[in-house]
């Protein structure tokens, strides 16, 4: 079974994100970038399925500037077999991502697409759902477990009330939640091997997809600073404040 996984390049989660001085977005120049942690979990899942003998080939896709090659190499060092970079300098919004991925799916014909449930930069949580809809495939989002048996996959999803178990027909799109697995440390020999794995570079035009943004960002600003708290004298005062000032009870 062939699997397609996605790997978005995002600001490293340990970096303090700064808003650009002109308010058009956040500063990404000269900032440490990394693979989106949820994408990393998706890659890990594919690699584990390959090690278990269920998956035969893992293709990893990233969309964005040339530097996304590094993100793909990381995924290949984890165990993905080959990479596809869809290179564009545009800001790629969720629908455009889904359209690009749809074109790649049609070309590659995977039986399963594993994505991160969302990227930690814009937290959209839309691409997996949109891709499934465009393909007309079943979707299972926010999964914490997956087992593929022939033409179907047993899924566990984390929901508010507990765990939801589902069966979906494959081909399907699934998106990984935090507890699906714990990604491995990449080994040194695999970093060296990843250099030699094939990495294809294509442009959105070649896939017949227009990635131009449809949403316009008006302004990006930092959240307002939290103001200092106050000490209350007793419970009565607290209740009164919650009632009259905060209006939460």
């Amino acid at each position: 079974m062939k699997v397609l996984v996605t790997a978005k390049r995002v600001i490293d989660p340990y970096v303090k994100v700064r808003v650009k001085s002109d308010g058009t977005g956040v500063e990404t120049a000269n900032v440490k970038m990394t693979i989106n942690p949820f994408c990393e979990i998706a890659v890990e899942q594919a690699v584990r399925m390959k090690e278990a003998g269920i998956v035969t080939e893992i293709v990893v896709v990233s969309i964005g500037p040339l530097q996304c090659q590094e993100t793909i190499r990381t995924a290949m060092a984890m165990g993905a077999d080959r990479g596809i970079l869809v290179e564009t300098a545009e800001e790629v919004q969720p629908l455009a991502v889904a359209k690009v991925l749809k074109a790649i799916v049609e070309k590659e014909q995977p039986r399963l697409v594993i994505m991160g449930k969302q990227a930690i930069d814009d937290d959209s949580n839309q691409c997996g759902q949109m891709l499934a809809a465009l393909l007309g495939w079943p979707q299972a989002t926010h999964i914490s477990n997956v087992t593929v048996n022939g033409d179907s996959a047993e899924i566990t999803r984390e929901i508010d009330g507990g765990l939801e178990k589902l069966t979906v027909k494959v081909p399907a799109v699934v998106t990984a939640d935090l507890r699906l697995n714990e990604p491995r440390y990449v080994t040194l020999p695999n970093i060296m091997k990843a250099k030699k794995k094939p990495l294809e570079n294509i442009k959105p035009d070649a896939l017949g997809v227009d990635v131009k943004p449809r949403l316009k960002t008006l302004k990006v600003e930092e959240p307002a600073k939290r103001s200092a708290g106050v000490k209350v004298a007793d419970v009565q005062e607290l209740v009164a404040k919650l009632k009259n000032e905060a209006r939460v009870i």
Partner: protein
Amino acid sequence: MSSYVAPLKDMLFVINELAGLDDISKLPGCEEVNAELVEAVLGEAAKFAQEVLEPLNRVGDKEGSKLANHVVTSPAGFKAAYQQFREAGWNGLGGMTEYGGQGLPHLVSNPVQEMWNSSNMAFCLCPMLTSGVLEAMRHHGSPEQLQRYVPKLTSGEWSGTMNLTEPQAGSDLAAVRTKAVPEGDHYKISGTKIFITWGEHDMADNIVHLVLARLPDAPEGVKGISLFIVPKFLPNADGSPGERNDVKCVSIEHKLGIHASPTCVMQYGDAGGAVGYLVGEANRGLEYMFTMMNHARLGVGLEGVAVAERAYQHALEYAKTRVQGREVGQRSGDRVTIIHHPDVRRMLMHMKSQIEAMRALAYLSAATLDKAKHHPDAAEKRRHQAVIDLLIPVVKAWCTEQCVEIASTGVQIHGGMGFVEETGAAQYLRDARITTIYEGTTGIQANDLVGRKVGYEKGVTAMAVIAQMRETAAASTGDLSAIGQALSRAIDALQEATQWIVDTFQKNPNAVYAVAVPYLKLFGTVGGGWMMARAAQIAQCKRAEPGADVGFYDTKVTTARFYCEHILPQAAGFRQTVVAGADSVLALSEAQF
């Protein structure tokens, strides 16, 4: 409590720009190495150091390794971490490719080593000793020995140790007394070795000891010492660890620092003699040890860089969070974090600027070592070999001496809390303290520098390096002219002191050895200034490029300026001590002390 964050940006700046990764990529055998690969390797190593090794650093310090019934148990978590380290392939970073290593050059493996040492120096000593054994094997092992030991040492399944020191033979190895008696295809080894780092432990399946010993008919002194492989378990024909050899750990030392690393007293031959295999030819053991000395001493110099970096990060976080007092000149208003106080800033800059200078000099040495090893042109190879031979004692002793001072400043920034173990600042100082001692003390390094490296060759290589420094000073113009002038003055001091060493060495060697350490510190201080001036020049050019990280490059220039204003002026003082200070060192009679 701070967490270690590998200073990747600083490291890559030095690797790519200062030490010249491009030149290394051109060397035969290093063609695969490029900036992208280096970034990937360093990035993953940083993760491993930060997430696996660093959390064990305190545990290791508090718990220490323990000995019971000749068995050493490493601190909780160490065995599992070593297993992970091994499985991730890190043990084979610089190893021979034909035996499963990755064959990466020093310019890549040494920065990775810096991260291991920053996050957990005591742990790092185990793989570091293994790489020392591998280096010895690479040069002197027979094909059969390579086949038998190198793959397992490269993978880390087995670890290695160096057994040189004996109670009466420390810096003076000519006094080694351990015996080796021939018996069939092997030798029976008996004697006591002390200070054996990771000599016994529970992390690897087997331990391969390299042991210096004397054959029965060996001549006295250094020319009568041979090198032997003595495995803890004798390997079976299929390579698996077999029969237990007659070697055991009889005690471990209680030390000031590196508590997690067991420092063992090893007893050989209590039950008739440990089986040992001769490496290379008889009576050439000490000479073999010297072939890997540069490698090992550079490794310890890097420990200095690494622990200093860690101490700096720890102090920096404290300075940014500890609130105490108001800003100078303010009588009211909010109290501020101590980084607002000028003297705390001075201490932080003192740490930061020297660490950057030390790292640059250490990585430059790594690159020089690579060129000395791989350069296709024989003359170039010789030239780089001469330079590295000169730089090694400087990097080893200067980086470690400064590290002790920097770690001490780290404690100082914490005030009273730094003296309390709880804050963790003290561990770095305690761990750092060994680095100026083992692998040749600062005194031994300085003697090597003024003797073999400067005196005997009449300063030829030293003057060539000084000429290179002058080029950098001359190129520091425009906004950097103050840096260039400060560097020029410091180079004058170094050149004059070097000339004095050359002139005095033949007629009064005692005087030269009396001021060897100040000379070495002078060399390190000026060498560091040379690196900082180059960093400033590169930063100046780079900041003008479109999209450049202006803040990063400006920091480089300012840090270089601080170094020139606060550290480099010491050069004149060292020079004065060198050219005029020997007499008083030697003037007192023994009774007058």
